[in-house]
């Protein structure tokens, strides 16, 4: 049985797809963010910034969907191979990842809302996204630019830890932590070590 929802030990399709989609968009946004502010052509830079805004709103939507899904569909238990320290820290790290995936788009939205450039936002040219009700000023714009940068650095650091932990589980501990985020719940429940080990 290929399940859309999570089981006590495995993730369902919905969570797996949301996880990788959000992962790709989130990491892509870091890359796009760095490139767009270093592009010499003002035109290309402008267009990349609009694309960054579009993907930011997509990310916000996906993360809200994921949190809603997760609230109604508990994550599978950690395999027995996960140690006591990680059992305590992993949920905190995952909570922080969710928090940053909300905070980054919101701080970006705040940034464009207070910017004295007053450039409208149209995610993927589809509709006009209203600005947040914040006062426009150079000082606020500087503040939100700084906040967006610091949050981005925190996000990159956390994603790096997340990826390193997943690789450690897969290649060093040889458990199902990474595998179960790739293959969905398939009826046959296994806990702890995968067949590979």
């Amino acid at each position, binding site marked *: 049985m290929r399940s859309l929802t999570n089981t006590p030990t495995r993730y369902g399709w919905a969570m797996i797809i949301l996880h990788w989609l959000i992962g790709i968009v989130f990491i892509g946004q870091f890359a796009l963010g760095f490139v767009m502010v270093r592009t010499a*052509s*003002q*035109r290309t830079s*402008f267009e990349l910034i609009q694309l960054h805004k579009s993907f930011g709103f997509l990310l916000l939507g996906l993360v809200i969907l994921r949190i809603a899904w997760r609230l109604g569909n508990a994550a599978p238990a950690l395999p027995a191979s996960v140690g006591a320290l990680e059992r305590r820290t992993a949920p905190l790290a995952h909570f922080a990842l969710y928090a940053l995936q909300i905070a980054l788009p919101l701080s970006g939205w705040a940034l464009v809302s207070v910017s004295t450039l007053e450039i409208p936002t*149209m995610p993927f*040219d589809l509709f*006009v996204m209203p600005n947040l009700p914040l006062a426009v000023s150079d000082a606020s714009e500087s503040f939100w630019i700084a906040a967006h940068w610091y949050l981005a650095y925190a996000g990159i650091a956390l994603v790096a830890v997340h990826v390193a932990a997943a690789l450690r589980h897969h290649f060093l501990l040889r458990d199902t932590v990474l595998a179960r985020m790739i293959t969905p719940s398939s009826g046959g429940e296994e806990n702890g070590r995968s067949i590979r080990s």
Partner: protein
Amino acid sequence: MHARILGLAAFAACLAVPAAAAVALSDAAGSYTINPSGSSIRFTIGKAGGGGFDGTFGRFKGTIRIDNGDVGRSKVDLTIYPESVGTGQGRIDAFLRSDAVFDATNNPEIQFRSTSVTRTGDTTALVTGRLTARGRTFPEKFSAELDGLKGGTIKFHVTGKVLRSRYGMDVGTPLYSNVVNFDMTLMGRRG
């Protein structure tokens, strides 16, 4: 009684305006050099979600020649220096001057050369011509209204819409409208 006199005076004044204006255009015949200090070139571009942004060109030059007897043979030449664009926001000005929009370094002039002038009223005319920006030329038309004529100076209020996309300046659409609304006051001095 007073009311009737006032009414008559108002009626007479109404008659007098177009008559005086009609005279004005033929009186206006001659060559004028556009005087930037008495003139202004403003533009506005609508923004998605309402509002828009406006700017001015601070530096421009040109001539207006009004043909004696045949308004249709009148001519208008206008050269705008896009480097002088001003929106009140330095970052937007730099963006507009850059190769994203005007590419002012490689294309220092925007030129309008009239090809025909058609009178549309006592004090109004439609000016058709060729607009060149960023190396591309297209026909454009502007409405001109005589706004004053005295002591060797002439003043026109000129409005028109230009589609920026065909001049290679489509950046920012559809966030910003493709239509640029021009609103100019051109004051010319005889000679």
